[in-house]
């Protein structure tokens, strides 16, 4: 899961090549990788890729702080589905 998300963010959302390669701990908000519209792109990607729907309550900055926190959040919200989707 980390690899899929890291690849997507690196490929589609990182504007500044100096930020690559992206680590799973890199702060996506503080580094400026995620703004309002790129967060939307990421959410659309995650929903399509993992078959989930995110509501207002899921849109906490801490859930999108880094690739790792995104994965932690996804595993926590629907462990079985993420396992199946990934496995």
């Amino acid at each position, binding site marked *: 899961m980390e690899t899929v998300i890291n690849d997507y963010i690196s490929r589609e959302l990182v504007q500044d090549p100096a930020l690559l390669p992206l680590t799973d701990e890199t702060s996506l908000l503080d580094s400026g990788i995620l703004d*309002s*519209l790129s967060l*939307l792109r990421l959410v659309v990607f995650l929903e399509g890729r993992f078959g989930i729907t995110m509501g207002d309550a899921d849109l906490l900055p801490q859930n999108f702080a880094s690739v790792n926190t995104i994965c932690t959040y996804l595993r926590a919200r629907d462990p079985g589905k993420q396992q199946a989707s990934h496995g």
Partner: protein
Amino acid sequence: MGDPASGLLRNVERAAFSAALARLPAALGYRIACWRADSLFLRQDSKRTEIARNLQLVLGNELSPAAAQQVTRDWFRLASCEAVDVKRLRHKTRPLRRLVEIRGREHLEAALAAGKGAILCTGHFGSHSSGFSVLHASGFPVTTIGRWHYKYTAGLSSAERRFWDLYLRPVRRHRQRPNIEPWPGRPQVAVLAAAALRANEVVTIAIDAPPLDSDRARAVQVPFLGHRAGLLPGAVTLAQVTGAPLLMGFVYRAADYRHQVLEISAPVPAQGETATAFERCAAEMSAAISRSPAHWEFWANTDDLAVLGLIPPQRDGSPDAPALQSDGRSLHNGSTDSISARG
């Protein structure tokens, strides 16, 4: 601006006056609003001069000095009438609804039929907030992306914030959801807007807002009023990501000052390169302002015009606290795009 207490008192008086006018027959109420505006036009020397100067700086040869004065007078009248509009939003907007014709609702209906919502781009133009309240009350679920100015204007007392909160309650009441307010540190704005679109709502965005400092790097330079202005293309990006159709909507006031038309366009193509697609929206906005310059709120906002790149940067100065009536337009949502507010 004077001390805050007298400013608040003045706003309360003006709001009460507008509320009284809103209870009169429309022809009489709006006529008195215009008389009052004419009196303010004559008395508020510095504001009058500022607006006329900005008009000539931006529109240049398009306006003679006499025409600039005429537009300035009209600007005061429209601002005064807009304050009355807000007070006519009572009783499920009926008192205002019978004065506002919605043209192009078939475009909006066709857009919503696809089930992806619709993005209605506008500007700080005419009585847009009240116009969208009428649209909502007419059966279209409207959600607005925009900041309420009283929440972010520095130096406002709690009493002043309370005043504006109460004053704008009628506008807020006629929205599907609370405004989606773009702020630095609030990156979920576009996702919230996308959620409204998924629910097949109409999301309104003013595309003429000066970008916040944190967003300036994302502004694109587009032809605007004969200049190049730095505007945020977030509405187009939102349309591209969600697949929602993008329409333009402008509220024009008729020569009798009481009737208005909310004109909704056919969808504007949002495909292709973002900046190019956004240029189409900016061109529509620019054309609307050129056609009816007095309808544009920003003539009195010298700092905003400078941030947009339409006039040279001005002397240093902190924004004034908002006032009602002659500044009746500052009751609107402030900068209403900034959709890409950085987290």
